[in-house]
């Protein structure tokens, strides 16, 4: 079952299209990372999903309900923490929790207590007097304590120091229940989320560029280096970043499939020495971003 599903979802601000015909499905039980540079449309997408913005066209379903009709019942199963969240700054941490609790039938006092201790949050301090890291942890705590079915985190890590970030991830994992628990997390930095995510989607210019499991991505991308490739041999059509310098030829193979692919290389390069290595997710994303840019330039030229 899909916890989130969008159909041709678009959102404009005046004449600017922030999200363009997005079709996205987030399966239940996954940790889904929504990645992309600043301005790619991540926050807009999330705001539509949380019914903070209506779509211009198309639709989104969240927890089985149209996003525009999200009611109390769905909101009680939904956790949302955003980088720019508005919090009642005049309240203390304790008052915030006392205020939130009655809205959620599944609120777990024991979990609340554990998270308070784990996050080292000062209960009597006003939110206005908390550091940015503490404030994010308070917001997270108030969204975790009722064990939401779906947790949505919009750029949760930006501007957090490594210790706070680590606390934050531990807190999120604290409520994990295998198979039932779904997380959607947006980030501009793949390394922040690569250990957590099952599946990554890449947004760029409001369009979906990629939607794949991390496992399959790392399985099919290889950086290949060839020493003494025969002169005159060019790249296959889907190879990326083909370069030659001296005796060395280098490229990225986006469809590596074991023995078959290696045989194809041997046919092309004869006896030359072929070395290949897996790529990190960050390298894969950089390669894809550069390839998208080249295609875009060629299209307009």
């Amino acid at each position: 079952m899909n916890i989130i599903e969008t159909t041709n979802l678009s959102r404009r601000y005046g004449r600017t299209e922030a999200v363009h015909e997005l079709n996205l499905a987030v399966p239940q039980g996954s940790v889904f990372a929504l990645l992309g540079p600043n301005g790619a449309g991540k926050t807009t997408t999330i705001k539509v999903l949380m019914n903070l913005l209506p779509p211009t066209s198309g639709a989104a379903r969240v927890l089985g309900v149209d996003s525009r009709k999200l009611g109390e019942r769905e909101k009680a199963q939904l956790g949302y923490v955003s980088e720019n969240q508005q919090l009642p700054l005049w309240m203390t941490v304790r008052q915030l929790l006392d205020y939130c609790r009655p809205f959620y039938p599944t609120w777990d006092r024991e979990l609340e207590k554990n998270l308070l201790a784990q996050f080292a949050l000062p209960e009597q301090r006003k939110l206005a007097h908390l550091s940015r890291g503490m404030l994010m942890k308070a917001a997270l705590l108030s969204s975790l304590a009722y064990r939401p079915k779906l947790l949505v985190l919009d750029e949760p890590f930006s501007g957090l120091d490594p210790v706070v970030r680590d606390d934050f991830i531990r807190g999120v994992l604290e409520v994990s229940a295998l198979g039932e628990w779904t997380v959607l997390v947006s980030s501009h930095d793949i390394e922040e989320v690569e250990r957590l995510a099952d599946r990554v989607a890449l947004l760029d210019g409001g369009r979906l560029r990629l939607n794949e499991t991390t496992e399959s991505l790392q399985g099919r991308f290889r950086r290949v280096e060839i020493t003494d490739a025969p002169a005159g041999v060019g790249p296959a059509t889907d190879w990326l970043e083909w370069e030659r310098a001296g005796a060395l030829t280098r490229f990225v193979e986006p469809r590596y499939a074991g023995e078959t692919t290696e045989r194809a290389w041997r046919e092309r390069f004869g006896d030359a020495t072929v070395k290949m290595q897996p790529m990190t997710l960050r390298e894969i994303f950089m390669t894809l971003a550069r390839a998208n840019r080249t295609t875009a330039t060629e299209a307009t030229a």
Partner: protein
Amino acid sequence: MLPFSIELKPGLPVAEQILFAVKKAVVAKQLRPGDKFPSVRLLSQELRINPNTAHKVIAALVHEGVLVTTPAVGSIVAEREAGGKRERAELLGADVERLVVEAKKLGLDIDDVQAAVAAHWKKLGGK
């Protein structure tokens, strides 16, 4: 705390890194037959990884016979036949390749490398 040493490096598939670390711990006798292996939950929290990944790792270790699941206790480290030497050598594979590549780059030959390895071996008290 986890009963085996691991330091996750960014970029490489997380599941593979953990599988390798666990097998290394077993052959190095850091993990012994009958030892209790961490639950999905503990593994996920300690390493800050997706619980689905932790689940997959444990399933793979059970499948490969490194762990056995018992209904009451969870997973424990399996009894292994004495053989295992080839397997232990395989775990070194990547490190050996790196050593050979570096040595060739420096223009050393195999005797130089063997001598260097033997010297180090002695220093660490091996025979």
